[in-house]
């Protein structure tokens, strides 16, 4: 195994504690940078990379790694807000780009999303559940079920302008339509990333961390599409460690992960993961290393039953999101191009 998390694996007898996620940050940064130079030049034959910057820690670390590996002139940043994005996201993205000395551009994708029907199609589905929902209301989607041993499903939460909140389970058709419509956001962003990559003869960086990659927390052919994914092997805790090492702005290093996709404030934990990221990191590490539910329970101060539910939920999400990872299937290998 060559992955950082694997190299840092503790002996089986060692207690399960957050220290298992510690890594030699300096060595890991150099390893990723050397890999990036090799892949961009020799494998992809591109001259640099495009990074879409959300202002979050993942994309900020990816941009910083790219600048370190390739130099600021070979990294192009895109800030791609839309009307449901928080203003602070673009502010942070800009702050990071300027700190790194790289070129960047801000493109408001709201008109494109409006034209393609993103908001209308999403809101049509929401109004099946909440007929009063209007353009000046806010909404978000939250996962439920899996964290308590049930089957995962999604709840829709809406907030009227007067602050009144309502929530209800999203029926299948409406759930699929809300997700499909909302996914326009990630797919339009990716279209722009590839436009700029093509015009510059650059490659596109994907920014998932290990939790997101493993648990399928991405849109296929949206944020899931990329030429390189430099931090997909790193737990979120480790990404924060890299952010600190790389000297990124304090607001980035302290930012809690959000989806920044729905108009109501929404953490990733609420939307998708069963636990806060640091606990989820440890749970995933423990599951990957064959640690027992009882060990996780002690480490996280929860019951063994709850810990087993977390493990079960990890496997359930892997099964459900297998499609996210699947490449196009061929009847038989075309070995001349895919050896």
């Amino acid at each position: 195994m060559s992955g950082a998390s694997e190299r840092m694996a503790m002996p089986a007898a060692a207690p399960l504690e957050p220290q298992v996620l510690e890594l030699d940050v300096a060595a890991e940064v150099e390893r990723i940078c050397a890999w990036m130079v090799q892949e961009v030049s020799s494998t992809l034959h591109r001259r640099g990379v495009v990074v879409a910057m959300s202002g979050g820690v993942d994309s900020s670390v990816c941009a910083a790694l790219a600048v370190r590996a390739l130099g600021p002139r070979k990294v192009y940043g895109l800030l791609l807000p839309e009307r449901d994005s928080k203003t602070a996201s673009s502010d942070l993205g800009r702050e990071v780009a300027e700190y790194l000395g790289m070129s960047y551009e801000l493109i408001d994708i709201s008109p494109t999303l409006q034209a393609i029907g993103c908001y209308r199609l999403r809101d049509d589905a929401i109004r099946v559940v909440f007929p009063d929902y209007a353009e000046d209301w806010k909404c978000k989607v939250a996962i439920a079920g899996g964290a308590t041993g049930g089957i995962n499903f999604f709840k829709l939460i809406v907030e009227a302008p007067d602050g009144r909140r309502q929530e209800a389970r999203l029926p299948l058709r409406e759930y699929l339509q809300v997700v499909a419509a909302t996914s326009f956001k990630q797919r339009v962003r990716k279209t722009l990333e590839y436009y700029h990559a093509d015009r510059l003869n650059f490659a596109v960086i994907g920014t998932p961390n290990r939790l997101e990659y493993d648990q399928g927390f991405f849109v296929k052919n949206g944020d899931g599409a990329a030429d390189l994914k430099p931090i997909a092997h790193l737990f979120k805790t480790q990404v924060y460690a890299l952010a600190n090492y790389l000297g990124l702005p304090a607001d980035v290093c302290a930012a809690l992960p959000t989806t920044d996709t729905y108009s109501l404030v929404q953490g990733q934990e609420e939307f998708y993961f069963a636990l806060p990221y640091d606990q989820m990191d440890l749970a995933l590490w423990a599951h990957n290393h064959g640690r027992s539910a009882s060990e996780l329970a002690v480490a996280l101060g929860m019951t063994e039953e709850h810990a087993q539910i977390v493990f079960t939920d990890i496997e359930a999400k892997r099964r459900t999101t297998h499609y996210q990872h699947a490449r196009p299937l061929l009847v038989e290998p075309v070995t001349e191009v895919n050896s």
Partner: protein
Amino acid sequence: MRDYKADLRKFIDDNYIIGLNGPAFADADSFMDRRIIDSTGFLELVMFLEETWGVVVADDEMVPENLDSLDQLQAYLTSKLGA
């Protein structure tokens, strides 16, 4: 006792296995363990229950104990709709 399994098995065969040499499964087999139904698939199953038999599946009933095998579905529907 009313039997719901035949309709359920046909729904599962038609929608998840698509009739093509899919995995044979026993009435007691777990859909999750047999990799027949994933989370989105369960939402489809719940919609089928609600539209076919008019039951309302409450949030706290969305648990494997009610939905994860033909036997469990039979018991669940019987409890909701009567024998």
